[in-house]
């Protein structure tokens, strides 16, 4: 029997079905996967490696801050010694306090100091990728000071950037995004956003999508912004943390569709390796860089891509030598048994151990050992790459069940170690349906 109610029910059902069918057209999910986070191999090949530096939160202008001093060191001695492919500075370039009580800027004096530091160090737009944070955006909705004084702001006239590194062994795409709010709101005492209306608007998302599409031939894609994607669980340490308030679902959809491997951010002033999977097929390495303007330990991070595998660790400013193991990969990078670094396929023979080693003084020795036992064994510098050291271990390391340690002696003795530990299994984060595993900072140093 046909009743008005039934008719309405069918109409509603038809509408729902029609709407469901239209969803892919309204919110198209990219069909082409660009980067391949699963592209890493375990190989004795030594000419498929490059590295870069991640820093955040210089907070130039903060009273008693270390931003100017550490930024100068990073762009001077560290750049000269590490010789990275590029440096990313993920926001809060300035403090916006002018040494005062709270961020009520922007202040021309802070931006002039920042500009003098980066220009004085010879930083260029093809090498130094600075993006805005919330402190750069308070009371400045158009980010006028950023556009006039930051390296990328001056070079592009915009607030986001996209760059690529092409080698004989592959192409790698990087994105610098503006997660800072665009409303020019003032800092506020009112929770939960405190005036920090972070997010990615339609224009910003279009830039990101266009950049991903234009670089879909890249082997790996890594994205950087200032803010966490979601607010962390409420604790005494995180009570005033802020995160994206709009654009999150669209951005995670783009990361998923284009195969982004890593999202790196700052903001919290804490170094943390996690793995973000909310609304994603597998997820991304979720890397939180601490504040180069606030602390010395864990102040910046060094990342390497070796045979398409990502390695990263936090470092202390003005401390040499520094060591980063790049093969085998850390199976627990951000989460226990990271899908991109665990069970990496072996290609070729041997059990290579490789590490990048940097020191402003001559390196006297580089050694390794397996499973914290036996003698330290020598490693050799790779011909043609003075920073890369290698050895062929006597045991099969491809199963990723061994502890690998490398120590270098130069100015002092520096260490690295993998696995970093046994991070907990992913847990649900604060009722948001966001599954994130976490590992304590700095555990790569024994």
């Amino acid at each position, binding site marked *: 029997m046909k009743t008005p109610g039934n008719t309405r029910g069918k109409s509603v059902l038809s509408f729902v079905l029609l709407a469901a069918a239209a969803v892919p057209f309204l919110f198209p999910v990219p069909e082409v996967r660009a980067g391949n986070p699963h592209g890493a191999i375990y190989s004795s090949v030594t000419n498929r490696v490059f590295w870069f530096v991640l820093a955040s939160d210089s907070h130039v202008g903060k009273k008693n801050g270390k931003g100017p001093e550490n930024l100068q060191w990073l762009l001077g001695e560290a750049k000269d010694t590490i010789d990275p492919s590029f440096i990313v500075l993920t926001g809060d370039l300035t403090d916006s306090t002018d040494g005062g*009580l709270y961020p*009520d800027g922007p202040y*021309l004096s802070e931006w002039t100091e920042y500009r003098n530091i980066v220009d004085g160090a010879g930083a260029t737009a093809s090498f130094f990728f600075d993006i805005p944070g919330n402190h750069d955006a308070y009371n400045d909705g158009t980010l*006028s000071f950023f556009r*006039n*004084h930051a390296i990328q702001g001056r070079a592009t006239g915009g607030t986001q950037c996209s760059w690529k590194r092409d080698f004989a062994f592959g192409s790698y795409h990087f994105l610098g995004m503006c997660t800072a709010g665009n409303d020019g709101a003032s800092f506020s005492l009112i*929770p939960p956003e405190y005036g920090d209306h972070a997010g990615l608007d339609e224009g910003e998302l279009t830039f990101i999508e266009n950049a991903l599409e234009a670089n879909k031939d890249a082997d790996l894609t890594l994205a950087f912004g200032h803010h966490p994607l979601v607010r962390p669980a409420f604790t005494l340490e995180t009570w*005033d943390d802020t995160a994206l308030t709009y654009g999150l679902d669209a951005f995670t959809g783009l990361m998923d569709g284009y195969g982004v491997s890593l999202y790196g951010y700052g903001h919290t002033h804490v170094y943390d390796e996690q793995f973000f999977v909310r609304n994603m097929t597998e997820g991304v390495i979720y890397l939180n860089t601490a504040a180069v303007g606030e602390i010395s330990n864990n102040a910046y991070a060094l990342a390497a891509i070796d045979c398409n595998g990502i390695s990263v660790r936090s470092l202390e400013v003005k401390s040499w030598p520094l060591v980063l193991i790049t093969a085998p990969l850390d199976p627990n990078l951000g989460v226990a048994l990271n899908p991109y670094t665990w069970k990496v396929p072996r290609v070729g023979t041997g059990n290579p151990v490789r590490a990048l080693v940097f020191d402003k003084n001559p390196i006297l020795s580089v050694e390794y050992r397996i499973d914290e036992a036996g003698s330290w064994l020598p490693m050799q510098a790779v011909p043609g790459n003075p920073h890369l050291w290698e050895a062929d271990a006597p045991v099969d390391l491809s199963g990723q069940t061994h502890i690998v340690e490398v120590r270098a002696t130069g100015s002092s003795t520096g260490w690295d170690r993998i696995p970093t530990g046994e991070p907990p299994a992913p847990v649900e984060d604060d009722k948001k349906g966001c599954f994130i595993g976490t590992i304590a900072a700095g555990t790569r140093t024994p």
Partner: protein
Amino acid sequence: MEKHKTAIPFVLALLFILLLPAAAAAGGEEASGAAGFNSEGLSYFNRGYYEELPAGRQAAAEESFRMAREAFQKAVAVDEGFVEAHRNLGRLYAILKDYERAAVEYRKVVDLEPGNVDAYLPLASALDRLGRADEALDVLKRAKTATADPLVLKHLDGLIEKLEVQGGTK
């Protein structure tokens, strides 16, 4: 009845003629009144602070700030209780590093909006920049009476501690 019908349009037309000048005057007053002056001041301020100053056009910025100050001053002269105009004038003075005048304007903002906990911050900041940390502390402690939100109170306690530990940031 018919006579009344004829009279209605006449009365309406008469009312229109009588009230039109008054309505026009009211509209004109709105455009050039406190809100109009405040809006004009903001235009000058935004041009000076976000276009000319970051681009290094210092002289042009200073002229824009002078025009902005005049407009904001006219706004508060027309309406002494116009809180936005006081806030804008306070910010302009603070940017010009005239913290004495900034504190005067920000204090008016607090007096006009005692329940707005955010209003206390710029006043405390201006006093702190004047080296009057004790007064800045008093302002922040007074701000605590304007809220019961534990997170806002926690934030205020952090700022109070910052001032107490450092004896002021200046």
